[in-house]
């Protein structure tokens, strides 16, 4: 569903990762690990097509990916239902009830998002992925501000998605209890400072 070959990426013009290759099939989950600043967010944004790779290729079909970044994309003045309904329509769908149920938002549907707690807002942001109908989910630190029960909700939602033929890529530090997930440690792909970095673009060598 998603494959990456010999990918190199940069953040703010500085190469961070290089030589990265992996493939993701239906029903699989991939957990990205690595210390802060190694480029997990940058990698996810590159996969989502928000920024171009320095080198290498990302093979992914049209309308396959759904991306959830650090921010939830939740509008504070709209209610939970309105927020979800909006994103469902943007992706050409209308069914939001399963997402509300999966993330235990039933009691909050008519509440404005600005009156939700941080964890509730996060759950709303994650529920958004369910209404997109896209097969590959990508999460950037999905469990921030979630309590243990909510993390379990999230893990079971992902598991259901995988069982239904979906796939997921996530950058996270905590153990979700997703035993079937593959772990990809990004440490070995760290771009070497100085050498190699200069070659990717003759202009960047400067002088």
């Amino acid at each position, binding site marked *: 569903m998603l494959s990456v070959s010999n990918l190199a990426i940069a953040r*703010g*013009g*500085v190469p961070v990762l290089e030589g990265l290759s992996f493939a993701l099939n239906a029903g699989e989950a991939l957990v990205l690990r690595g210390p802060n600043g190694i480029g997990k967010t940058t990698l996810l944004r590159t996969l989502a097509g928000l920024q171009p790779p320095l080198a290498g290729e990302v093979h992914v079909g049209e309308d396959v990916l759904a991306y959830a970044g650090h921010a939830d994309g939740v509008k504070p003045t709209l209610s939970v239902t309105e927020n979800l309904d909006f994103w469902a329509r943007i992706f050409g769908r209308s069914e939001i009830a399963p997402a509300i149920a999966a993330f235990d938002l039933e009691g909050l549907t008519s509440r404005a998002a600005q009156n939700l707690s941080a964890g509730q807002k996060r759950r709303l942001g994650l529920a958004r992925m369910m209404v997109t109908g896209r097969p590959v989910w990508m999460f950037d630190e999905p469990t921030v501000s979630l309590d243990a029960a909510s993390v379990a909700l999230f893990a079971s939602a992902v598991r259901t998605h995988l069982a239904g033929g979906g796939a997921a890529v996530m950058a996270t530090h905590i153990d979700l209890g997703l035993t079937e997930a593959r772990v990809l440690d990004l440490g070995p792909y760290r771009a070497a*400072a*100085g050498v190699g970095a200069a070659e990717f673009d*003759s*202009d*960047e*060598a*400067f002088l």
Partner: protein
Amino acid sequence: MQDDPAALKYSRMKSLWEYANPKKFMQVSGAMLPWAAGLSALCLVVGLIWGFFFTPDDYRQGSTVKIIYLHVPAALMAINAWLMMLVTSLIWLVRRHHVSALAARAAAPVGLVMTVIALVTGAIWGQPMWGTWWAWDPRLTSFLILALFYLGYMALWEAVENADTAADLTSVLCLVGSVFALLSRYAVLFWNQGLHQGASLSLDKEENVADVFYHPLLVSIAGFVLLFFALVLLRTRTEIRKRRLQALMNRERMG
């Protein structure tokens, strides 16, 4: 392979684009800079001294006609600097040569100064001729708008932190700005027919400016063109060094 015309053409094209390589550019510009600077100084000194000391007064405009040796070349360069920025911005957007984007950045302040010189000398000239420092004449107004475009362009370069992002955004602004600058030019003409005399320079120069004034004017224009060229070379070299410095410091932080 060498006989294949397409390959030959390609190798020629490649050799042209080689100057867009920063290393190559630094070598060539370093060699050219002293000549450009020297020639421009020579032309400016000759043109301006000739114009200031050895031209007669105009029978209508008196000695104010001597301002032409500053006003016309500056105005010419104000527009051509923007055109050059437009071309280099396009090259950056299409071929992603960093030197091109940096040259556009380097040219903007020079263009702004030229615009301001054209405006100030125009105002000083207009005072005795039209009886007012500032008239909302179409040409003056167009130059005022052009100055605003330069300011906005430079401010955008300064405001964006990532250099490549800044290059992309300013290039798009330059393209859109060019269209709107042209639109404004016609809008302003429509809005006020103006006091300004027709363009001083055109192919049928006999009609506009007599030879006594024309020859030193040509020298002075050559001086301004060379000055612009030399300044852009110098400032582009500075910009390239700044980028190099930035890259080195980034790498330092990484490693």
